[in-house]
């Protein structure tokens, strides 16, 4: 591969990587901090993308649509966690197997429901910034990637600041470390976790809108994103927000280099390959506790 091509691949990879970080921050919270086996996270992302698609058809900008849908996703997240906690977490034994099967079933239902509602064809959105591109010296960057990059960075940074700068945010981090200590401070760990899971699910609305801005979506896309999101969340070191950004960029660059050198048909395997590598070599991730 020539030097220029590699440079282009790295720039594209960084843009893509920030987007991957944005679709994974919710999982970093739900799985990384709260230890919920949220295998349905990517399915919720795709659901968010279809939400943006539906609103876009009545003329709403996809980003605005994502923002509008966020509260609904947040409330849905609260409800899912309330249910999950009541049925699985509080009962203890066997929660692992059943919790996983539960979220797997949810993901599967979301996927099939989307097929029934929208069909298996790819769907895309319209917006002023889609289809145009931006010249940076020799290379042309699609404007939609830049928009996604900006919003993704904003989402990740805001969430990072929220977790380290607010009382609730610090409580969420504390609940991940030591539930008992939090209870001693007078906060209800279950409520904190529910709130955090709501936020994690809420990010799926905006991140889903980014998803459909970056690429056309189909109902089965969620499965591919199981690899990408879990790769980022695990590589980050479970629950680390700066780690999520770094891990996203690593994955973005890896995918874009493979894409340029071996062709697009190999790209789906990159995230999963990287994920297996991380699990085998350093399961605690880059910024692991």
């Amino acid at each position, binding site marked *: 591969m020539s030097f220029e091509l590699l440079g282009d691949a790295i720039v594209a990879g960084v843009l893509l990587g920030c987007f991957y970080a944005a679709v994974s921050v919710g999982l970093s919270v739900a799985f990384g901090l709260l230890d919920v086996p949220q295998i349905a996270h990517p399915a919720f992302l795709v659901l968010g993308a279809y939400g943006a698609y539906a609103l876009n058809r009545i003329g709403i900008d996809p980003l605005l649509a994502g923002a509008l849908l966020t509260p609904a996703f947040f409330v849905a997240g609260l409800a899912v966690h309330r249910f999950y906690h009541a049925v699985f977490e509080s009962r*203890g*034994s*066997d929660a692992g197997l059943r919790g996983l099967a539960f979220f797997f079933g949810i993901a599967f239902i979301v996927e099939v429901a989307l097929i029934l509602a929208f069909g298996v064809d790819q769907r895309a959105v319209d917006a002023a910034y889609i289809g145009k591109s931006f010249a940076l010296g020799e290379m042309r960057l699609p404007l939609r990637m830049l928009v996604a990059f900006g919003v993704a960075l904003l989402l990740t940074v805001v969430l990072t600041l929220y977790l380290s700068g607010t009382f609730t945010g610090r409580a969420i981090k504390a609940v991940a470390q030591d539930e008992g200590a939090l209870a001693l401070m007078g906060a209800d760990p279950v409520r904190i976790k529910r709130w955090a899971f709501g936020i994690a699910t809420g990010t799926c609305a905006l991140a889903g809108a980014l998803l459909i801005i970056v690429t056309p979506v189909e109902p089965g896309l969620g499965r591919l994103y199981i690899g990408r999101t879990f790769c980022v969340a695990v590589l980050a070191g479970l629950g680390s927000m700066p780690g999520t950004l770094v891990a996203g960029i690593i994955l973005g660059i890896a995918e874009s280099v493979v894409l340029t050198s071996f062709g697009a048909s190999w790209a789906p395997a990159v995230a999963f390959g990287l994920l297996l590598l991380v699990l085998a070599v350093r399961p605690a991730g880059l910024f692991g*506790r």
Partner: protein
Amino acid sequence: MVREGGPQVSAALLEVTGITKRFGGFVALSDVSLALRAGERLGIIGPNGSGKTTLINCIAGALRGDAGSIRFDGVDVTRWPAHRRAQIGIARSFQLPRPFASMTLAENVAVPLEYVAHRHSLHRADVGAEARDLLRKMGLQAKADALPAALTQVDLRKLELARALAARPRLLVLDEVMAGLSPAEVDEVLGIVLDLSSEGVTIVMIEHIMRAIMKFSERVVCLDAGRILAQGTPQDVVRDTGVQKVYIGD
């Protein structure tokens, strides 16, 4: 009164040498050495977070130390996984009882019988009768076919003991097996433990209940902040000013 080191017993059953264990930046155990002769009864005391459970985990193999070595009956077991240590005679109980929740009491006890005591017999001889014998010894025979969820706290502790005994231990490591029990129940469990000792089993017991420690131990070790603060006879250790400071404060 003896500090750090203590008299070295020759032909020790268990020799812990310079064990250190860190969790991230936190040092849970710092260069701890300890020797036990066969048949001894050792009590371990110390405030919460002093490294007692970490030490037990290192001895039983649930954790591996960052430095130091552990020898059992002359064999270096430092790098052995927990199940191999169980197979050569190190059995333990857990601070929070961990029964096999989906199995009856008899099946719970059958697991170590099959995997330790009878692991060399080809078809792992029918262990049901033996499991029931052990449960009878603990006074649990009436509940042999019940699930652990149906047990009271004291019965759960006895199940932990029965399961540890089924592994035919030469060294039994008990982690707060009496916590949360009534005085009468403490005496009952203490009786069982002392009986085992008289049958020749070497026993290490972590306990907060001083009455039990005083009655049980031939020797007491007090841990504080991952180090051995004091050791000696139970009477000496409780009279130690350092120990009193740790327990009662300045």
